[in-house]
C-alpha cells in the first residue's frame, strides 16, 4: 500500500516515545493488572502459617526456635517470590497474545523490546512488593517473638539475604519472559524451572566439568556458563547460623543478577521482534 499524495514528512513529525516512557507505561498497566488478581493474598496465608509455626515450634523445639522460625519464614519468602516470578513471568506475554491486547500496543511507534522490558518491570515490581511485605512480616514475627535471642542472625544478614532473593526472583522473571516470547506458558514454566534447577546446581556442574575430559568437559562447561548461577543468591547458611555477610558479596551478587536480567530480556526482545503474532 502506498500513499498517493504527499512526501515524507519532516523527521520531527515522527514522534517516537523513549524507552523509559514506554516501559514505565507498560509496567504500570501490568502491575495494576497482576495486583487486581489479588495475588498478594498469599502474604496473608503465609503470615497465618508463620504465626502457627512459630507457636508450635516454640513449644516443641524451645532450644532452636530462632533457627527453625528463621528457616520457615525464609522458606515462605523464597517459595512465594519464586512462585509469583515463575507463574507471572511465564504467562504475561502469552496472556497478552491470547487476548490480543498486544496488537494495539505493538502497532504504536515502539520497539517490542521496550514493551518486554515494561512487562518485566511490571512483574518484577509485584515480586518486589510481595517480597518486601513478606520480609517485614517475617522480621516482625521473629524479632517480636525472639528479639532477645542471641542466636538470631544480624539484621544486615537478613537484609542482604532478602535483597539477593529478590534479585534472584527478577532473574527468574526475565528467564520466564524470555521463554514466553517463543513458546507456550506451560512450556515456559517447565523450561524456567529447568534453568533454575540447573542454575542452583551450577557449582556441581562446574566441578563435574573440571573432572571430565573431552567433549563432556566442554558441554558441561558450556551449560554452566550459559545459565545463571543461582548459588550466588543463596545466603541461607549465613542466615540460619547467624553469620555475617560481606558487602562485596552482596553487591557483586546484585550486579551479577542484574546482568542476568538483561541477557534474557535482550534475547527475548530480539525473538519477539522476529515473531509473527
Amino acid at each position: 500500500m502506498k500513499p498517493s499524495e504527499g512526501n515524507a514528512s519532516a523527521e520531527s513529525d515522527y514522534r517516537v516515545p523513549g524507552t523509559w516512557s514506554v516501559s514505565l507505561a507498560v509496567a504500570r498497566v501490568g502491575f495494576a493488572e497482576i495486583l487486581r488478581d489479588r495475588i498478594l493474598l498469599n502474604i496473608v496465608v503465609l503470615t497465618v502459617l508463620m504465626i502457627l509455626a512459630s507457636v508450635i515450634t516454640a513449644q516443641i523445639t524451645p532450644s532452636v526456635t530462632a533457627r527453625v522460625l528463621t528457616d520457615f519464614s525464609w522458606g515462605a519468602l523464597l517459595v512465594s517470590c519464586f512462585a509469583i516470578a515463575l507463574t507471572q513471568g511465564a504467562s504475561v506475554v502469552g496472556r497478552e497474545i491470547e487476548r490480543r491486547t498486544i496488537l494495539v500496543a505493538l502497532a504504536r511507534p515502539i520497539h517490542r523490546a521496550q514493551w518486554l522490558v515494561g512487562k518485566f518491570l511490571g512483574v518484577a515490581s509485584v515480586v518486589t512488593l510481595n517480597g518486601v511485605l513478606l520480609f517485614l512480616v517475617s522480621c516482625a514475627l521473629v524479632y517480636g517473638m525472639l528479639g532477645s535471642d542471641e542466636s538470631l542472625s544480624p539484621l544486615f544478614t537478613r537484609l542482604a539475604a532478602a535483597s539477593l532473593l529478590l534479585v534472584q526472583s527478577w532473574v527468574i522473571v526475565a528467564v520466564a519472559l524470555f521463554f514466553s516470547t517463543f513458546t507456550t506458558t506451560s512450556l515456559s514454566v517447565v523450561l524456567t524451572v529447568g534453568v533454575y534447577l540447573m542454575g542452583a546446581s551450577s557449582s556441581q556442574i562446574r566441578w563435574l566439568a573440571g573432572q571430565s575430559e573431552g567433549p563432556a568437559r566442554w558441554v558441561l562447561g558450556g551449560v554452566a556458563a550459559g545459565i545463571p548461577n543461582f548459588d550466588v543468591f543463596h545466603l541461607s547458611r549465613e542466615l540460619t547460623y547467624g553469620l555475617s555477610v560481606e558487602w562485596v558479596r552482596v553487591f557483586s551478587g546484585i550486579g551479577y543478577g542484574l546482568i542476568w536480567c538483561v541477557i534474557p530480556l535482550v534475547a527475548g526482545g530480539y525473538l519477539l521482534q522476529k515473531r509473527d503474532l
Partner: protein
Amino acid sequence: MKRSEVLHGISFDVPSGSVFGFLGPNGAGKTTLIHLVTGIRRPVSGSVQLQGISTQDPRARAKMGYLPERPYFHEHLTGESFLHYFGSLSGLTRQEVDQKIPKVLHAVGLAHARKHELKSYSKGMLQRIGIAQAILHDPKLLILDEPMSGLDPVGRKEIRELILKLAGEGRTIFFSSHVIPDVEAICDQVAILEKGRLRGCGPISGFLDREGTQKVEVALAGVGSLESLKLPAGRYLDCVSGARAIPEGLRLFVEGRANTTELLARALSIAGVEVLWVNPVRPSLEDFFGQQKSEASNRSPEGKFTNPNAGEV
C-alpha cells in the same frame, strides 16, 4: 511451522483524505495485510512502507492509528487511564494527553464514561474507546479492522457516523469489512480481496455502475402475466430476469435501460395498462462478488485471473 503464501502481488493506492474500504470474505487475507501495514507481521519477502519508511520501523507507525478486529483491552483500566497508557506509547507527554483526552472522548461520545472501567463498557463503547486510542495522537492515517463487527444496527450506525466525522477532519481512513452495505454506505474507494488476490480496486462508483449490469424494476397495473403483454418471443423474454404477480398487476426486473424503454413502450400501447413505478436497481458490491465468483468457477483450473489493476508488492 509450515509457511503458506497468503497474499499474492497486491498493490494499490490509497488517496489521501479518502475513506477506503477493504472488502473481502472471511479468510481473504484482509487482517494479514493490515498486520503487515501496521508492522505487527513481517513480510516473508519484499517490504511494506508508509511514506517511504518500513512499517517495521516505529517511525512509520507514529502517524498511524489502528483498531484491531474485535478489540479486547485491559478491562481493569478506566477509559481515561486506558488513553493515558496509549498516549504514553504514542510519545505524548502527560500534559498533552491530559489536554487531548476530553476532546477525544467527546469526539467518540464517551465523555460520560471516562471514569468507568472498560469491563463495564458495551461492545459499541469498546469499539468507540478503541477508535479514541487510535486518534489520540492525531494520526493522518486511520486503519480500522472490521470496526462494525459484532455490533447491533444502532452500534453500526454510530460507528459509520463516527468514521464519516473523522474523515471530515481530513484523515485518510482505511477500513476492512466483509459487510458490503457498510462499505457502500461510507466509502469513496474500495479494494476487493479474495483468497489473497486483489480482485478489483478503484472508486466505488466504478463497481456500482458497470456497463451492462444495470437493472430496472418496472411495476405495471392491468397486466396479469408476461404473456398478456404479447411480447415477441425470444428477445424480450431473455431480458426479463424476474417477474412476480402483485395485487395491482405485475412486477418485473428488466436488464438494461434500452430494453426497459422498449418494454414500457410496448406495455403502454396496450389498453388498460398503467405504469405504477420504474426504479433503476443499482448493482451492489454483492452482485460484483457474485459475478467474480461465477467467473472464477467458469475458469479452467490452470487459468489465472487477470486483473489489470493488480501489480506487484
